[in-house]
């Protein structure tokens, strides 16, 4: 059977026709699991249990609260090679490097690594909040690459900017990103001067960050040039780890924009506040364009629901969300609230249609299995483990901190495949190898092992002595598409019962495992069966969906 990758044997099902009307159906386990898998990384047992007694609005409100605990910044967990020209001996092992202005190449390379490991740890230990998913969203939206930025302090600062504003005001965030040090490096803002304008950021600001590339995004080349001139004069100071405005480099002339921007003229300013003032005007001007709110809402929709935005979704979902964004002066929370409480979000056709990103697969899997990482005080071990997971995600083509380019990861914009880009003949076997390794061997660093412990997970189930309950619960948490009864029965028999035909053999073994865990032979038998069942379920295509 020679089938092409673009499987168009059947007409793809159109997205649901439901709208932004509030969802008033059952808010039970299935809905909670769906909501958590989209707004957090994975639906951990404890989190599902926590929300079971809450209403949908209560749950969404809680998820939309910024984390009350801000994570401690990344620390120096690396050893500095003796050949380093400017070592950071002033920073003690285990202390943070984020405020230490060091521009040495080796040190920054170690710190960029350190940043990624730290970020992985923050996601793994996330609170019951949408904040980490939103931080990653903004990183994908305002894409930067650590390899290009280089300066690890800038990178951390940029990242914190995204996190602290993740649930705030997108217009304000856009303004802050524009003069952010990392972004000034990445898109050449720091090289943009009156005598030698650099259009890079001005273009991406309009094309990628605000207006998009759709048929209603009609900014012109002249707009790009004009915006570039508005943004002249910004520079970085590596010693103070901040950006600043240099009047000497600023273009003080008036900047004329096209009809797309109502032919606005931004008055050229002089003086120390010129940059800030003109930037404010620029942002205000861009954000009056109706397309901006829609563009941002489409990106949010692709991130949280699905990538297929046809005329019906545009009319029923995107436009109402965009209106909400505008009337709330570009605050993100009301938009997210409306989307996550909508009938549309819980429609059967919106469920299970996302292919997990590598981060979703890895972080979600670790959280769902309740993988315990060492305490942050043991930074060497914990960062070692985060590093392992960063590597896996990178192998699967999602290197956090380093998307392929300024457009972010292709899965979120490249038509017609979108999410399907995550899955190819290289990455799918790697996904399977990752889950196999975690559930069979785990990962050991400094003699500490982390693994997907299927037996520990099973202990949380409602009735694990019943083998049907074990299979049903595992399927319910791992999959968004149900498995047929025949399939579940075959798995129960082949794996949990080792080919026996009576359920009580499993029941007896489980009860012995709980009451007498020192019976090694029985414990091994039970653990291996659960391991094999979990492994099998994670090997199926269904596991890749969220």
């Amino acid at each position: 059977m020679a089938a092409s990758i673009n499987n168009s044997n059947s007409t793809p099902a159109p997205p649901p026709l439901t709208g932004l009307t509030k969802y008033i159906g059952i808010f039970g386990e299935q809905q909670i699991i769906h909501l958590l898998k989209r707004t957090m990384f994975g639906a951990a047992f404890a989190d599902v249990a926590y929300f079971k007694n809450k209403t949908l609005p209560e749950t969404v409100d809680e998820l939309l609260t910024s984390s009350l605990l801000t994570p401690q910044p990344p620390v120096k967990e690396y050893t500095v090679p003796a050949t380093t020209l400017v070592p950071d001996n002033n920073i003690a092992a285990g202390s943070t490097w984020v405020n230490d202005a060091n521009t040495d190449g080796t040190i920054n390379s170690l710190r960029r690594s350190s940043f990624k490991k730290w970020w992985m740890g923050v996601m793994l230990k996330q609170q019951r909040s949408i904040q980490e998913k939103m931080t990653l969203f903004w990183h994908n939206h305002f894409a930067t690459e650590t390899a290009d930025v280089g300066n690890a302090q800038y990178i951390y600062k940029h990242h914190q900017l995204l996190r602290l504003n993740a649930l705030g005001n997108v217009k304000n965030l856009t303004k802050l990103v524009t003069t952010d040090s990392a972004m000034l490096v990445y898109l050449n803002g720091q090289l943009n001067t009156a005598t030698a304008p650099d259009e890079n950021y001005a273009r991406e600001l309009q094309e990628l960050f605000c207006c998009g590339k759709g048929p209603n995004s009609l900014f012109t080349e002249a707009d790009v040039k004009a915006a570039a001139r508005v943004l002249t004069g910004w520079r970085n100071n590596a010693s103070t780890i901040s950006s600043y405005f240099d009047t000497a480099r600023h273009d003080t002339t008036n900047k004329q924009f096209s009809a797309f921007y109502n032919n606005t003229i931004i008055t050229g300013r002089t003086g120390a506040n010129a940059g800030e003032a003109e930037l404010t005007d620029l942002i205000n001007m861009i954000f009056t364009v109706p397309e901006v709110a829609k563009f941002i809402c489409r990106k949010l929709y692709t991130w949280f629901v699905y990538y297929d935005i046809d005329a019906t979704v545009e009319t029923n979902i995107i436009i109402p969300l965009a209106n909400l964004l505008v009337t709330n002066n570009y605050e993100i929370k009301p938009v997210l609230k409306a989307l996550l409480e909508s009938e549309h979000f819980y429609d059967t056709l919106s469920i299970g249609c996302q292919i997990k990103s590598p981060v979703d697969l890895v972080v979600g899997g670790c959280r769902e299995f309740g993988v315990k990482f060492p305490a942050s005080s043991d930074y060497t071990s914990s960062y070692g483990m985060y590093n392992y997971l960063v590597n896996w995600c990178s192998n699967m083509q999602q290197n956090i901190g380093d998307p392929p380019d300024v457009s972010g990861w292709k899965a979120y914009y490249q038509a017609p495949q979108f999410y399907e880009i995550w899955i190819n003949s290289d990455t799918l076997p790697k996904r399977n190898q990752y889950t196999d390794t975690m559930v069979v061997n785990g990962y050991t660093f400094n003699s500490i092992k982390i693994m997907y412990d299927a037996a520990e997970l099973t202990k949380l189930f409602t009735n694990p002595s019943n083998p049907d309950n074990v299979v049903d619960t595992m399927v319910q948490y791992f999959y968004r598409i149900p498995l047929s009864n025949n399939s579940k029965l075959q798995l129960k028999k082949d794996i949990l019962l080792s080919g026996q035909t009576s359920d009580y053999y499993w029941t007896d073994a489980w009860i012995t495992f709980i009451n007498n865990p020192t019976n090694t032979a029985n414990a091994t038998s039970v653990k291996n069966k659960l391991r094999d069942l979990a492994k099998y379920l994670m090997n199926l295509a269904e596991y890749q969906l969220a």
Partner: protein
Amino acid sequence: MKRRNFLKNAVQASVALPSLINGFSFHAFGNSSPFLQSLLAANTETDHVLVIIQLNGGNDGLNTVIPIQFHANYAAARANIFIPENKALKLTNNNAIGLHPSMTGLRDMYNNGKLKIVQSVGYPQPSFSHFRATDIWMSASDSNNVVNSGWAGRYLNTEYPNFPNGYPNSAMQDPLAIQIGSATSLTLQGPAVSMGMSITNPSNFYNLINGISDTAPNTPAGKELQYIRLVAQQTQQYASVIKDAASKVPTQATYPTANSLADQLKIVARLIKGGLKTRVYMVNYGGFDTHAIQVNNTDTTTGSHANLLKNVSDAIAAFQKDLEFLQIDHRVAGMTFSEFGRRIKSNASIGTDHGTAAPLFIFGKNVLGGTLGNTPNIATNVAVGDNLPFQYDFRSVYATMLANWLCVSETDLSQIMLKNFQTLPLVNTLSCKKAANLAGDILISNYPNPFTSSTVITFKTTGDHTLIQIIDTTGRVVENLVDKVYTAGTYTVVFNAANYPNGVYYARLQNMVNQQVRTMLKVQ
């Protein structure tokens, strides 16, 4: 389409299981150099195949191989289920025993010298638990030890020590072992990873080779699912070799219908004939836990056990005929095993409870036909708790098949079987060639091996965190020999085992996403 219609079509999918599942998912990260590719595939060169037939539940040996020699006592102990003497199938040159009346196929094979009956196979301190006893038979451990790998898995790890790194490659592009069933069993588990792959069930196999794909719901989720399945099928490394092998065998001999063991063996014969270099196949037939109504009380030669044995006998007989038809019978030997036999004395439910030793069958063209062992002696007064002592340790059977059929060397044999076991006269010993080189990427090795007190381990790392654990046969990590960050290169480290007991140890290398295991043997 109206939304209502959509939802109607969108609901339950009878989602089927995929056709193939890897025992351990692997991806050929390393590049096989042309040099490596020119080397022979395995440690030992042989085209012999071993087919392992697991009978789940504990087969009642005494009603399978009836002890004619002690029939009176046998009948007395099992008044409600015994097979009458004149109904037991007679065997050429052996009046001491007879086969269950439904096993005409195996009777004929015995009389043609293609069946070996090994009496009273068991082991010391046997377990009466299905799970534990099955694990013991599969891991070939002592009954008081827990061993975390399977005997066939350890064999395959010895033959293909670099698996999965660099596999499949042009020298060995086929699965090392194939099991029919949802998951690869402990039998095929190597020291670190499973060495086999599984074909979910016979109907999935035919769907695979006939290109019939599974249904998916008519929803966006279903669309994404179909895409992923498509990629899964294309990247299932063995899907194409299995399909190719199957396509080369358009005709087979006739197999009985409504016989799931026959269905499985038919696929095995087809794949062997189709040219797979796979050496170990495992199939499974269950229902033998006959605590109640083992027979029909009106005619004890019929009933549930009779049906099971008929299917086993018919399936093996058809399989053997097919091997002859396909002209591959000289390459294949098969064996049955069950986790235990059953109680000498029957119970009041017209059945039998868990027992101990029982006979097993070895079959094939090159098998030394006949009976090995004495007829189990049945006492005049059998108590409810009495059980049959074993005459042959099941590990001797495994050791024999490995040494005499799969040509495993003595040193390797003691590593695989964890101890020395006598070999038995089961198959014709044929000479085997020994290959000098190994395919795949060698990431870890040691010298000397076997060693007496210490050995030098050489390993390759691509850089970053590198771990070498020393693991014993129970799976316990006895030492973390290496656990730090390296720059890329080749390094050595000494494993000093002076204070450890003799036996098999595994050096497991883990270098970020790569892992590989080296089997080491400490001797006196």
